[in-house]
């Protein structure tokens, strides 16, 4: 399958501070790829390099098969949508006026504004002035602007960091719709549940290096210790082997009516991150 993003041994230094260190990965067409890492790990730097806002110090970065310097060309701009952490909306103008400008810049009919506002649950807020919006609304407008022109590739830098769980879930639904239409999504987050929900593959970024990269499901399998966690009626919590021995033990507990609950003991992405990097995510 075609690689939409291809990064080989990219590094970025600011002065003599290393922001990215020998980073390599690729993102396939239609894939949702997550960059997970704590603050300062280099997530935004990576997005800036991939959208030609920043030049890597060394290594190669290709998007749509061309080096990122060429993304300035009109035909690539139209295929890329970007949401960065600093909003970039005109605060004295209304939501509609902001989006209308971008419709004109991207050659999109203004009808599309209703569609994107519906996707972010803001369909009745056309006339609201941007400076009067809550943080979460602002983030949703910025998101709507990022996919206004139906980009083939969408960069989302912490798209839900200012949203409550309900709004986040709305956004996830919207993103899933874009994904089902074939959009490739590159997103950064420090929310592990978000990564689990949305991403086909995730990379763990820590201090500018990728420490682990795989499908969330496979990572959990890889890091599970093969036990089942059983809570007993008396409040005890025990871990049983998943083999025949464990089965026998579990059978006994269950026959005695002592089992409150039994769960597979797979680690969450958050647990794995801590295990691999020795750092918490947020």
């Amino acid at each position, binding site marked *: 399958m075609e690689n939409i993003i291809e990064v080989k041994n990219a590094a970025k230094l600011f002065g003599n501070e290393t922001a990215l260190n020998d980073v390599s990965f690729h993102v396939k067409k239609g894939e949702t790829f997550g960059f997970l890492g704590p603050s300062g790990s280099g997530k935004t730097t990576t997005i*800036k390099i991939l*959208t*030609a*806002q*920043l*030049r890597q110090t060394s290594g190669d970065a290709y998007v749509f098969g061309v080096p990122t310097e060429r993304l*300035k060309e*009109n035909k690539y*701009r*139209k295929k*890329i949508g*970007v949401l*960065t952490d*600093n*909003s*970039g*909306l*005109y*605060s*004295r*103008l209304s939501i509609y*006026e902001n989006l*209308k*400008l*971008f419709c*004109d*810049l*991207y*050659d999109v009919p203004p009808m599309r504004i209703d569609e994107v506002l519906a996707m972010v649950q803001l369909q009745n807020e056309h006339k609201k002035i941007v400076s009067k919006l809550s943080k979460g609304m602002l983030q949703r407008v910025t998101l709507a*602007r990022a996919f206004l022109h139906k980009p083939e590739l969408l960069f989302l830098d912490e798209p839900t960091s200012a949203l409550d769980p309900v709004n986040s879930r709305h956004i996830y639904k919207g993103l899933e719709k874009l994904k089902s239409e074939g959009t490739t999504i590159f997103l950064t987050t420090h929310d592990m549940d978000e990564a689990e929900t949305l991403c086909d593959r995730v990379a763990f970024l820590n201090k500018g290096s990728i420490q682990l990269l795989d499908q969330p499901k496979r990572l959990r399998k890889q890091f599970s210790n093969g036990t089942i966690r059983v809570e007993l009626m008396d409040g005890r919590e025990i871990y049983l082997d998943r083999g025949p021995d464990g089965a026998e033990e579990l059978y006994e507990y269950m026959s005695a009516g002592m089992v409150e609950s039994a769960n597979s003991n797979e680690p969450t992405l958050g647990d794995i991150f801590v295990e691999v990097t020795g750092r918490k995510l947020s």
Partner: protein
Amino acid sequence: MTFSLKRSLAIFRKDYKDVSKNLYVSTTVLMPLILAAVYGRTGVETVEVYFLVFNLTFTMVAAYVQSALIAEEKEKNTLRGLMLSPATTAEILGGKSMLSFLGTLIVLVMCAFFMEYQPGNLLIISVASLISIVFYIGIGTLIGLLTRSVMEASVAILPVAFFFSFVPLVKPFMDEYPILKAVNFFPNLQLIELANQIETGAGWGDSWSAILIILGWTVVITSFVVAVYNRKMVDH
């Protein structure tokens, strides 16, 4: 490079709506108008006085308003959005200049009207003034690009405005200090020179050198603006 007027006009429309809600910028255009109204009542004797007002318009409307418009795009992180869109450098800078250009033009015409300025050759002085507007918008764009906020831009514009408004006042000292003659090549002085010439019946044949010098300055400043802008597109 293709130029889409549609994109430039979209940016212009946006600026127009934005500025009409921004009193801070809107009030600066009043300064030259008030001065022109005052002179209009007392009567103007010399070309120098007309051009004191016109120069103020160039610096306070063309350069200052432009620098504020550009600096605000930087301050609010909106310039990035324009840069990442399919709009080209020419479309963005062109669109971002339309409002200051029109505004300056309107204020100039109104000032001329208040002061009852009747140039000896309207066409020549109009051509030279239109080119001058572009020059001052270039200056404003440059200041906007090199500063980080509207506050910074409005401080940075002061020495520039002072320089272009008051340099004409050194003229009387030129005989005494010949070094000051170099100042004659500045676009603002060329414009005044031209305005004086047409009062004594000069036509196109006598005017082209002044117009070319102003045009030369404008081309230089414009290329400089484009170079700085392209550098700003990529962070370092």
